[in-house]
């Protein structure tokens, strides 16, 4: 069974979802929690069985799908994807467990289980087409969640979300087909297998084009600065659970794909585009932080702050060295936990008051002390306070990029300060001062269901902030092998010098990583 644990992880929730149609409406919540718990335990089992010292792919599975055309069902995890998979199963579990009362809760839970299938699929796929299948399929459950349970503009928001990402992915698909064609020309066989593609060294001008094609798909998903306009609508209209899944997991697909596809496939193009992308990422960090400061709606503040922090992830990824990439992968997890928690928290207050306007609140700290405490800690984690989860990731990302450009790193760092400003300002507006509105005086504090979702997130964000080693170790191992691969594949001298060679200075890289801890 353990040989196929990844397939089980992918298809178990889908199968459970189909069976879920037969379950009576009132029992569906228990069913969903049970399925989510099994799925989460399976992913923990995966971690338990995972060999943290190995850097390559583990639990590989292979099954021919369209062998004539080189499409195979290939799965595998390494340190980079392992934790994102665990994060996704975890969020599905607590997401279902904390679902408030809503219409058609049965369909919601079934949809979440389908979404879980596509998420695990994306992170475990090692064949470009299989990856693409799950990548596209993940749009459908999300479309339904936003479109069926969202706010007044839900239909507009869901169409915008779908079409934006769909268009980007189709451009990416053309890029994949080109990649397969070049592989065919080089080797004489068709293959969409990622590990085969890793061995292919392309001339620089082709790399530049292909990088651009993949970039469109990934950048829209992240979403990066000029393509980010769909996200505030999606977040603004989506129900709490939709925003949580979107921010915690779905956006990570884009940044994960950068690490998995763009960097190792096109090392020279990555170096070529490093500065333009860094500039975009910095614009994203600072500009969206400023936009967040101007928002009146607390959910929009969280949404824009989430975009802003995705900029740091991109910056770390394009540092193209071990610290930066490890840091950005770790920040993906941290951002998932923190942004997910913040959306949960916004959902809590929305459930009580049915408004998200900050001006409607004020002085909540006295009315809802537990809520205020958790919100405060999570907000601090989001800003990147030391000893919280985001600090580790942000620090490593900046450390990595500092080696490439001092000045850009400093500018990006100033964005974090803006982040602190808007977060504290929002916190002040909502929680401090007098209780001005009559309706706010008797708001109930967090209930058991909400605590079930929030307390584990709180524990994780502090635990991994204090002691990131168990997670950072495996990530670091896998990132090292990617960076080494990039260095070996790079053909231009610029790229050779920008991407460190770990065979030579593997010790010093290890030291700096120690220092980061």
């Amino acid at each position, binding site marked *: 069974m353990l040989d196929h644990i990844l397939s089980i992880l992918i298809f178990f929730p889908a199968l459970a979802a189909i069976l879920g149609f037969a379950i009576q409406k009132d029992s569906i919540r228990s069913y969903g929690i049970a399925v989510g718990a099994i799925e989460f335990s399976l992913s923990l089992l995966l971690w338990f069985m995972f060999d943290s010292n190995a850097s390559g792919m583990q639990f590989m599975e292979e099954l*021919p*799908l*369209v*062998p*004539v*055309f080189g499409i195979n069902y290939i799965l595998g995890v390494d340190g980079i994807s392992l934790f994102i998979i665990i994060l996704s199963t975890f969020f599905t579990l607590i997401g279902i467990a904390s679902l408030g009362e809503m219409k058609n809760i049965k369909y919601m839970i079934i949809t979440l289980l389908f979404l879980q299938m596509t998420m695990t699929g994306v992170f475990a796929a090692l064949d470009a*087409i299989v990856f*693409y*299948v799950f990548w*596209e*399929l993940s*749009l*459908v459950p999300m*479309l*339904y969640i936003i*479109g*069926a349970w969202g706010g007044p503009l*839900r*239909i507009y928001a*869901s*169409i915008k979300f*779908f*079409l934006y990402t*769909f*268009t980007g992915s*189709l*451009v990416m*698909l*053309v890029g994949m*087909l*080109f990649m*397969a*064609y070049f592989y*065919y020309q080089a080797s004489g066989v068709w293959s969409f297998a990622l590990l085969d593609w890793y061995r292919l060294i392309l001339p620089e001008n082709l790399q530049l084009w292909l990088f651009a094609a993949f970039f469109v798909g990934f950048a829209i998903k992240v979403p990066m600065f000029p393509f980010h306009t769909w996200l505030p609508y999606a977040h603004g209209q989506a129900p709490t659970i939709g925003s949580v899944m979107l921010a915690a997991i779905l956006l990570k697909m884009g940044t994960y794909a950068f690490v998995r596809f763009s960097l190792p496939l096109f090392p020279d193009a990555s170096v070529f585009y490093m500065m333009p992308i860094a500039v975009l990422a910095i614009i994203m960090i600072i500009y969206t932080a400023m936009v967040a400061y101007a928002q009146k709606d607390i959910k929009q503040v969280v949404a824009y702050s989430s975009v802003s922090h995705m900029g740091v992830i991109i910056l770390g990824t394009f540092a193209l060295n071990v610290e930066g990439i490890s840091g950005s992968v770790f920040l993906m997890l941290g951002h998932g936990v923190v942004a997910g928690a913040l959306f949960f928290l916004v959902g809590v207050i929305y459930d009580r008051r049915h408004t998200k306007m900050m001006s409607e609140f004020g002085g909540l700290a006295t009315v809802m002390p537990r809520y205020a405490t958790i919100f405060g800690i999570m907000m601090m984690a989001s800003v990147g306070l030391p000893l919280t989860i985001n600090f580790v990731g942000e620090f490593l990302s900046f450390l990595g990029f500092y080696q490439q450009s001092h000045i850009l790193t400093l500018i990006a760092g100033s964005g974090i300060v803006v982040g602190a400003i808007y977060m504290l300002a929002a916190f002040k507006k909502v929680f401090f001062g007098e209780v001005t509105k009559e309706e706010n005086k008797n708001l109930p504090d967090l209930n058991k269901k909400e605590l079930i979702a929030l307390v584990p997130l709180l524990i994780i964000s502090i635990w991994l902030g204090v002691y990131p080693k168990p997670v950072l170790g495996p990530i670091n191992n896998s990132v090292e092998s990617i960076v080494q691969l990039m260095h070996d594949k790079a053909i231009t001298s610029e790229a050779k010098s920008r991407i460190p060679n770990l065979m030579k200075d593997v010790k010093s890289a290890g030291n700096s990583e120690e220092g980061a801890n």
Partner: protein
Amino acid sequence: MLESVNVSLESLNLITLLPMLIPVIGALLILVIDMFKSGQDKSLYVMIAIIFLFMDFASLVDSAGAFSQDGTVMGVFNVMLIDGLAILSQFIIVGASIVFIPLSLTSKRFHEFSYPEFFALFLFMIAGFQFMVATDNLILIFVGLETASLALYTLIAMHNRDKSFEAAVKYFTMGALAAAFFSFGSMVFYALTGSVEINQIATVLAGNGYADIAYVLVAVTFMLASLGFKLSLVPFHTWAPDVYEGSSASMAGYMSIVPKIAGFIVAMRIFEFLIHSGVEWLEVVLYIFVVVTMTAANMWALVQTDVKRMLAYSSISHAGFVMAAILIGTTQSNSALFLYWVLFAFTNLGSFAMLWISRQKNIPWYQTSDHSYNKFAGMIKTSPIAAVIMALFMLSLAGVPPFALFWGKLYMISSAVNAGYNALALIMALNSAIAGYYYLKLIIYMFMKEPIVGADEQVFTNNSSLPLRSIIGFAAIGTVFAFILVNPLLEFITSFVYNSGY
């Protein structure tokens, strides 16, 4: 004194005629039965038609076996040409017909199915299409085309609604024009080369090095216009939406599949040798046709308020997409054409069948037409299974993986990439994205809107019966599990296309 013509029966190779003769015999049998005892139930005729179509299919399997052993077979004074293209396309024609004909077993009574002539004409039409694809003789193509088209006009008119007469007359007029163009084009080719056989024409033209290129272009223009009408390429598409709207949903679905594959085969036979011999003008014109057909039809589909008209424009767009295969003209692209069309047949028959079972006798107040979008509002609440299946077909048409049409698009775009048509590949991909919007629109109506108060909730399965539900289930399973089907299909198709020299 004329010499007596001495032809041995064996050299005629009459076996090549067998697949076409079977439906003709079936049609005659239906007429004979009606002569002896008229007024019988439609189920009798449906089953007779299915039996003959299955025999037809079996004889095709037979000739497929012969083809993979001996290669291309000629017969009947070298008029019949049984190569891989002929066999593959006949598989699609007959296979789609087998799935289509039980759609007449509706629970409601429809005028046209009470006539046995409907089924006889249907079988004649299939024979016509089979003739059209299994020859490279322009005259026989013409005969096949006209046999099939005349039968089809009548089938549309038999639907017996105001709009169906309009549709039939429109289709007939346009078809007549196309036929005239076709015969004129053939005439010019004959004048140039002294032959009406495409391979002879190719040899002669290559022999004299395209000396009369101006006349060749005249002939090609007429051919292109004529086939453009049949394949509904923009700007020759104007009949298509009206004809789809006027005919019954099942007939419209049929028209989007079978006549077009026959047209594609003829286009492939005529145009590919011309493109390969460097008639650049044709390449440019085809390129424009492909891009304009794909894009413009998509734009029109965006603004439709009726699902059937939307599907009509979407079929035009898909036809443009597939026409790219003929432009590209590699073995891979030609295989992609067949793969695409098989998968498209599944999905499109399914979606039109879904419209067919929701057919109403009278149009209620909130609908402006038979299948306007708001008819489907809130369908998930009233008939969830039907809504999910319909959504499945829409996602497949939009090219969302892993559903059927995604694999066709994948292979088609890949063939464009491999042949160096980079811009075309990108245009094809972006058109799929545009198309995503109007398919999504129906999903939005079904899943995210509230049902209209006072709407008839039974309407979505109004017309359903066991055979119809089975066909839809069959199409749905084919759409979902296409990824299993793709590999064997691709191997089979590629070997057939490759062995017939395309």
